[in-house]
C-alpha cells in the first residue's frame, strides 16, 4: 500500500469511527434525511438519544441487526414521537443523565398530522427536549401521499393530476410559536452552518425546542439526486422556504433575502410541479410574495 492510500484509509477509518451517523444507511441517493441527521448529531457532539416514529427515518437507520447510528435510537409508533421522547427524558433524567439531549426525530406526517396532538401537549408543558421534523413535504415512506405539509399545487399520489393539492402548506412554526415555545426555527440541509447554529441554540435553551428542517426527497419530489442541495438552496433563495427563528413565541429573527429569485426556478427542477400552468406558477408566486411580506412585517430582527 502506498503512503497516500494508507493515509486515505486511515482518514476513512477515523471518519467511520467518529461519524455519529455512518455510511451504509438505507436512504435513497440524494435524500436529505441522513444529511440532516449527521449535521444535527455532529452539532450535539453525539450527546443525544433519538426517538423515531414510523417514517423514512425509521428505515434509513437500518434493519435489525444493523444500525447506522452511534447514539441510542428508540423506535416508536407513528403518533408517539413527542410523548415517547418525553418519557425517555423523564426516565433518563431520573437516572442522572443530565446532559443528553432527547430528540424526537419525525417526518412531516408524524409532526404536522398524526403526531401533532402529542407534540402540542409536550410543548404546552414545556418538556425539556428537542423536536426535529425533517420535512420532505409528504408521506414518503408509504409512497408519496400528501400531508398537511405538502405545498400548494404539488403532485402526490393522493393529489394526482387534475386534483393537485388545493390547500397551502400548514405553517407549523406559527403553531409552535402560538405555544410560546422557547425556541422554534426553520432550517434546511442546504445551509449547514445555519442548521448547526440553530441546533446549538436549541441545546442551550431549556424547555421545548422545535426545528423544522426542509429535507429534499428525490423520490417524492421527482428530482435528480444530484440536485438535492441546489433545490433546497433555491427553496430559500426564492422565499418559498424562508429561514427564521422564533424565541418564546415572540421574537422573530429572519434571514433576509434582498434579491429573491422567481419561484419558477425552484419549481421547474421538480417533477412534482411539472403539471403547473403559467397561471398556477403566478398564483404560487403571489402566495410566496404575500407570505414573505407578512414574515418581514412580523420580524423583530432581519439579518
Amino acid at each position, binding site marked *: 500500500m502506498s503512503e497516500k492510500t494508507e493515509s486515505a484509509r486511515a482518514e476513512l477509518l477515523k471518519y467511520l469511527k467518529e461519524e455519529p451517523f455512518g455510511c451504509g444507511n438505507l436512504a435513497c441517493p440524494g435524500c436529505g434525511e441522513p444529511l440532516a441527521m449527521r449535521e444535527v448529531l455532529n452539532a450535539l457532539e453525539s*450527546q*443525544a*438519544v433519538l*426517538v423515531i416514529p414510523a417514517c423514512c427515518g*425509521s*428505515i434509513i*437507520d*437500518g*434493519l*435489525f*441487526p444493523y*444500525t447506522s*447510528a*452511534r*447514539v*441510542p*435510537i*428508540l*423506535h*416508536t*409508533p407513528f*403518533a*408517539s414521537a*413527542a*410523548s*415517547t*421522547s*418525553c*418519557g*425517555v*427524558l*423523564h*426516565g*433518563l433524567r*431520573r*437516572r442522572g*443523565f443530565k446532559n*443528553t439531549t432527547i430528540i424526537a426525530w419525525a417526518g412531516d406526517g408524524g409532526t404536522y398530522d398524526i403526531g401533532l*396532538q*402529542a407534540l*402540542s*401537549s409536550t410543548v404546552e*408543558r414545556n418538556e425539556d427536549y428537542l423536536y426535529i421534523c425533517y420535512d420532505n413535504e409528504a408521506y414518503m415512506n408509504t409512497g408519496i401521499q400528501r400531508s398537511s405539509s405538502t405545498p400548494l399545487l404539488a403532485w402526490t399520489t393522493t393529489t394526482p393530476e387534475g386534483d393537485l393539492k388545493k390547500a397551502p402548506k400548514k405553517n407549523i412554526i406559527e403553531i409552535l410559536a402560538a405555544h410560546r415555545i422557547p425556541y422554534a426555527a426553520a432550517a434546511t440541509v442546504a445551509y449547514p452552518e445555519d442548521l448547526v447554529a440553530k441546533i446549538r441554540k436549541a441545546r442551550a435553551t431549556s424547555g421545548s425546542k422545535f426545528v423544522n428542517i426542509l429535507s429534499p426527497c428525490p423520490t417524492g419530489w421527482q428530482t435528480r439526486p444530484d440536485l438535492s442541495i441546489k433545490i433546497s438552496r433555491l427553496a430559500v433563495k426564492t422565499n418559498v422556504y424562508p429561514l427564521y427563528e422564533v424565541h418564546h413565541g415572540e421574537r422573530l429573527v429572519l434571514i433576509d433575502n434582498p434579491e429573491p429569485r422567481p419561484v419558477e426556478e425552484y419549481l421547474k427542477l421538480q417533477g412534482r410541479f411539472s403539471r403547473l400552468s403559467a397561471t398556477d406558477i403566478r398564483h404560487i408566486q403571489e402566495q410566496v410574495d404575500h407570505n414573505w411580506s407578512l414574515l418581514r412585517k412580523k420580524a423583530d430582527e432581519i439579518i
Partner: protein
Amino acid sequence: MKALITGNEAVSTAVKLARVEVIAAYPITPQTSIAEKLSQYCSSGELDADFIKVESEHSALATVMGASSAGVRTFTATSSQGLALMHELLHWSSGARLPVVMANVNRALGAPWNIWCDHSDSLSQRDTGWLQFYCESCQEVLDTVLIAFRLAESVFTPVMVMLDGYILSHTAEPVEIPEPEQVDRFLPKYQPLAAIDPKDPHTYHAVTSPEYFMEFKQRQFEAARQAEAVAREVSADFAKQFGRHYALTESFMCEDAETIIVAAGTSAGTGRYVVRRLREQGRRVGLLRVRMFRPFPFEEIRTLLGGAARVAVLDQAISPGSEGVLFQEVRSALYQAGGSGPEIYDFVTGLGGRDILPSYIEEMVEKVENGGKAGLARVNWLGLKS
C-alpha cells in the same frame, strides 16, 4: 395498618408503595380518582415520581413506554375507551418487553355510551401480549398491583390489573396496608436488562425482517407462558412476606362438585353465595374464579374442572359473531385433541353494569342441570328484558 379505602385508593396506595418513578395517566370514569390521587402524591412529594399530565391515553402509554425504555419503574391507569385508544401501544409495549404495570378499571365500551362495569374493555385486549389479573376485593387489588410489578420485571412483560368499575373502584373496604419496608423487601428497585444508555448506544425495535421477526415473537410468547410458573413463585413469596396467598385461580367447593360455575372479578362473590345456598339444599355445586387470565392457566383449570359433569361459564364480555370470551378460554382448557371432559355452557350477563343477581346464577345451575345440551343455546343470555 388497616384502612377503609376504595379499590381506586388501593391502586394508588400500591403504586406509592412500589416507589414507581414515572407515571402518566389520563382521566376517564371510573378510573379518574387513581390519576388524581397519584398526581397529588407526586405534587406533595409523598411519592418521589414524575407524574406526566399527557393529553390522551395513547400518549400516556407512549410516555411510560419511553420512561420504561430508559430504565425506570412506570405505571399508568385507564378504563374502557381509554384502553381501546391505547390498543396500538399495548402491542408495542409488550413486543418491546417493557415491564409496565397498568390498572384498568373495568367499564363497558360504547356505543351506546355506558360508564358501568363489564369486562369487554380488557378482554378485547387479550391478544396484546399483556398479562391480566382480575380482582375481587380492594385488598386483592392492592396486593395484585405489588405482585404485578414483581412479575412484570421478572419476565419483562407488561401486566394489567383489573378491578370492576364502581363495584370495587368506588367501594370502600377495610384493607391491610403493608409497611413500606416490607414492600421494599418484596419489591426491590427495578433492574432493567437493556435500558437506553447514552454511553452504550443501541437501536431498539428497528424494522425486523421475516428472517428474524418470528424468533422475537416466539420468545415473547414463551415469556408470557413462563409467567404462569413465575406468578406462582411470586405469589408464594408474597404470602411469605404478607401472609396473604393468591392462587392463579380460586376454587370454592369444587372437589366433589357435579356442576361448577366459572366467573372472574366480583361476580364470583355472588357466585359463592349461591353455591353456599345450593349446598344447603344438598346440591353438589362449586365455583371457580379465574384470577389470572393471561397467561391462561390451562392445566390448573383442566385439573380443577375435569372431574365435574358440567361447567357453566358466566361471561361479562362477548365476541359478537362468536361466543363469550371467558367461555372460549375455559373450553379451550378443557378440550384437547382426543380428550373428553365435562359439558360446558356459556351464559352472558352483567353487560354495561347490569346487576348480576343471585337468581341469575341459580338459573344457570338449573338450566345446565335440567336442560342439558338440548335446552340451551350456544350462548345464553341471563336477565334480558323481554
